[in-house]
């Protein structure tokens, strides 16, 4: 444990770790969708969540429609938005501007209801609903029936759906970069300095190679944790956390189709788990690449394509096709989401175990 701690200290050189941390933070602030949150639509949804909670039931929907006509009155009746002078006046007034967003959000909801959720507020499955159910995959049908039964409409804003679609990839890329930045120099330093002869002749012996691999895996997990924490902090700073309990599984315009009903928060936690898994796998990949190569350049030429393929693969298996694989059964989808990274991890663990076993007999020249 003590040697493992020392190896971790060697791995997390203060300058490099701090640089990585700043790089991750800067990338998230500059590129992530979370950093642009909330836009005007999101603000309106925020208001609705504050008012009605994470979902909207039928009664609340009726209230909302009434509220909408009041807002429109306040704004000067139907056709208010066509008057440009009036528009400038409204925009100058803080409370009136809020009404505009609210009306906008309510209109979006109405639109969605017409588009996909209309049946949710019908008492009986209508002919159109029955028609629709027939053309659905079983999961879609289950989802529709769920909405019909609960008669609740999730208030997930378009912004959080975009966050869920685009931020995981950014986080994944950051974690892969983090693994490369931390692990390649750490592994190659010992290799190039030929510290092995001193290390292996001490009490630890060849077990040091195990400990080094473990330190790398810990670095991968840590990079994932830190990236996730930074992302969570950004979500919190930008007020996205208010949507924590909003169900995000949806159809059509809003929400990410998913095989189980997850709230935004649960979806994030799931993603953090997956990210840590990806971090550990990428770490092993880097550790092996460094073990197999002598110089930084060869290690990079090995590690970069491997990381890129792995990153693309895991992204393809998780974020992108959630909607495409909506037709899958839950176990099949779960396999593609967590199973593929787990399989790769198992293969890499096996590979490093073999390398370590060979090392145990190898002469240290």
């Amino acid at each position, binding site marked *: 444990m003590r*040697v493992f*701690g020392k190896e971790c200290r*060697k791995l997390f050189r203060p300058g490099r770790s701090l640089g990585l941390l700043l790089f991750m933070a800067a990338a998230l602030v500059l590129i992530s969708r979370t950093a642009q949150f909330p836009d005007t639509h999101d603000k309106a949804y925020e208001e609705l969540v504050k008012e009605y909670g994470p979902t909207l039931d039928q009664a609340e929907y009726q209230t909302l429609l009434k509220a909408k006509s009041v807002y429109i009155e306040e704004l000067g009746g139907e056709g208010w938005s066509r008057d440009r002078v009036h528009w400038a006046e409204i925009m100058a007034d803080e409370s009136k501007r809020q009404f505009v967003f609210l009306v906008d959000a309510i209109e979006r909801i109405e639109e969605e209801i017409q588009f996909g959720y209309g049946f949710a507020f019908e008492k009986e499955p209508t002919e159109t609903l029955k028609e629709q159910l027939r053309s659905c995959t079983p999961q879609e049908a289950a989802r529709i029936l769920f909405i019909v039964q609960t008669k609740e409409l999730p208030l997930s804003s378009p912004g959080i759906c975009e966050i869920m679609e685009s931020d995981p990839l950014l986080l994944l890329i950051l974690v892969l970069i983090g693994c490369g930045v931390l692990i390649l120099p750490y592994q190659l330093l010992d290799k190039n300095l030929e510290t092995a*002869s*001193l290390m292996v*002749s*001490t009490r630890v*012996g060849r077990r040091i190679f195990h400990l080094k691999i473990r330190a790398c895996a810990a670095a991968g997990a840590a990079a994932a944790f830190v990236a996730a924490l930074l992302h969570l902090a950004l979500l919190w700073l930008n007020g996205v956390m208010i949507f924590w309990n909003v169900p995000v599984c949806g159809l059509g315009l809003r929400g990410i189709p998913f095989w189980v009903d997850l709230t935004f928060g649960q979806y994030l936690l799931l993603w953090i788990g997956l990210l840590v898994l990806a971090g550990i796998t990428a770490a092993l990949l880097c550790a092996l690449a460094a073990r197999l190569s002598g110089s930084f350049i060869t290690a990079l030429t090995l590690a970069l394509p491997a990381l890129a393929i792995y990153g693309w693969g895991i992204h393809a298996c998780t974020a992108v096709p959630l909607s495409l694989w909506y037709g899958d059964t839950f176990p099949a989808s779960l396999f593609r989401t967590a199973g593929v990274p787990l399989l790769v991890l198992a293969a890499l663990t096996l590979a490093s175990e073999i390398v370590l076993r060979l090392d145990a007999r190898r*002469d240290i020249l």
Partner: protein
Amino acid sequence: MLTISEVSKSYGKKRVLDDISIELENGLYGLLAPNGAGKTTLLKLIVTLLSPDRGEILWNGAPVQKLGASYREIIGYLPQQFGYYKYNTPVQYLDYLAALKGLPREGLKEKIFSVLDTVGLSDVAQVKMRKFSGGMIQRVGIAQALMGDSRLLILDEPTAGLDPKERARFRNLIAEMSKNRIVILSTHIVSDVESVSGRVLMLKDRKLVRNQSASALCSELEGKVFEIRVKTDDQAAALKKEHFILSERNEAGSMILRYYSEQPAGLEGERLCPPNLEDLFLVMYR
């Protein structure tokens, strides 16, 4: 007690050590052989970095490969070349190695400062090693080998890069250390092993050819080392053709040649000299 029993080692097809057997008790052993003779290879076998192709190495009768950590625990090893972290201070580096050696945390700081003092580095204990000279790095290496009070001290060319003052300090230290442990040091600098009491191990043609005290080794050449003052270059050239020249030096305008000869050459002015270890080295590896 360390027993090296019929050990052979090859790198690929190249045999480096062949059937080496030595028994070592507490005391100092100087492994003296020219470059490439296999000194480093033998020491690496002892510290388990290499495993022998044939034969085995035993510590108090038990094979060292089987003993594993409990054997490595008693080793202090200075490799001929060792990697160190430039961004570390000697204290940080020794602290790291202490963890690898499994030394107890209690009293570690004091121990580190005391070994650094022993090698004369206490002034720079907290200076990053990137600012160190080659000799200072070598002394950090010696310090780490001394840390932990090892029963078996294996030093591969420990005096490389040390100045005369440090070399003298090191010799005294080793003489003291070898009283109650096995110290093996490899060198091709004869004076490192000449003045200390202990045994000299010599490797030649992959075999161990000598395992004796320095004085016993020198006595082999008793009556065979001569010096003569030569006046002309022709005289010198003639002598060089006939005998194996050990050294030549200039003294008061004329040249003094030291040479090896089985019998006195019967030359005028020839003088019998007491042989030294360097003579033996030169004769043996001529």
